């Protein structure tokens, strides 16, 4: 993140320690995550010790301390989605992409995250892919979604070709 961008975010909020969380949200909105330099700059700008900035950034799950993949698959693990099988979706995503929850695929294309509820519980299980909501998701739907985004042809056709 450029010093200029940080300056813009801090504008009007300097030396206001209570703005820390709001500022970190804005940094993340811009960069997708919160790099170390940004935390240093925020610490200076707001007059909050760096220890405290790091503590806050590591305490709140909304903040990412490392870059995410290009496509963030967020699986809702809220109660309502859980009883409708959200666990299967997590297994599907981690199994298919070969990464763990919270990690990024080596090609940087995907990362898998979880959330505790997106507030659309009635339509669970819910998966979001970047900002798009997918409802009543099944492992099959998720597999096709991942295939499509990954630029692969859905497996059906692949199957047909190899056979």
């Amino acid at each position, binding site marked *: 993140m450029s010093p200029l961008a940080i300056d813009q975010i801090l504008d009007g909020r300097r030396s206001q320690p209570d703005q820390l969380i709001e500022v970190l949200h804005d940094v993340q909105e811009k960069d997708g995550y919160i790099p*170390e330099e940004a935390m240093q700059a925020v610490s200076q700008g707001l007059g909050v*010790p*760096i*220890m*405290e*900035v*790091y*503590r806050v950034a*590591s*305490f709140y799950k909304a903040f990412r301390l490392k870059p995410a993949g290009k496509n963030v698959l967020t699986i809702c693990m809220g109660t309502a989605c859980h009883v409708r099988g959200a666990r299967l979706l997590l297994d599907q995503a981690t199994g298919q992409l070969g990464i763990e929850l919270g990690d990024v695929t080596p090609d940087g294309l995907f990362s898998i995250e979880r959330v505790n509820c997106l507030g659309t519980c009635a339509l669970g299980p819910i998966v979001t892919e970047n900002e798009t909501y997918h409802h009543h998701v099944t492992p099959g739907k998720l597999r096709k979604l991942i295939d499509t985004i990954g630029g692969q042809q859905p497996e059906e056709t692949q199957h047909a070709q190899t056979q």
Partner: protein
Amino acid sequence: MQQYVNVNIDGAIIRAIRGTSVLDTAIEYGICIPHLCHVPGLTDIGACRLCIVEHVVNGRSKVTTSCTLNVEEGMVILTSTDKIRKLRHNLAELLVAQAPNSRAIQDIAVRCGVTSVRYPFRNADCVLCGRCVRTCTEIWKARAIGFVGRGKDRHVDYPFGIQPEFCKQCNNCIQICPMTITPCNGPMKPGEEYLCGQCESQLIVADETPGSCVWCELGEGFACGRYA
């Protein structure tokens, strides 16, 4: 000017300085309330919960930690009821099962009557009492270490995990840590942890007059208020 209030702790009417905690008052008066995260002079965070007492208000008693509770006129406190002893025992059991490799923790467990542990031992090297963090922050104003992460990921760390150049290298964090005092028989091997119980003999006196401070050696190593 100091103002005083009268509080009733275990039946004794004590003249206490307004603004002090029930725990400090009790220790000062010679009533032993086991504690771990409390360090005289530092802010109390109520982390270890060992110092729980019953606070009786209008005939109803509430369990609360005495380190975070300030004395007030007419307050009634019970530090060693059956209920409190049982709860404190269960807490100390959780604690020592977590970190048996510390003399201070073993001592506290004995003091709270833990003679066996119902959970598998773990060998944690930090009990998250925050003594180090508050020493660094409040006494040295360095803020070189702090609690990072939350829930089960909570741990003590430097910013970004690297010792910063502003760390004063005073080593106070180490001195005040209960985990640095090894058990009398030396460190236990992983997988072979046990309850040592060697100090039981010392506590016979305490058993005879429950709840009173006997100037035991237990607190010495990790700065019980009495030794501060």
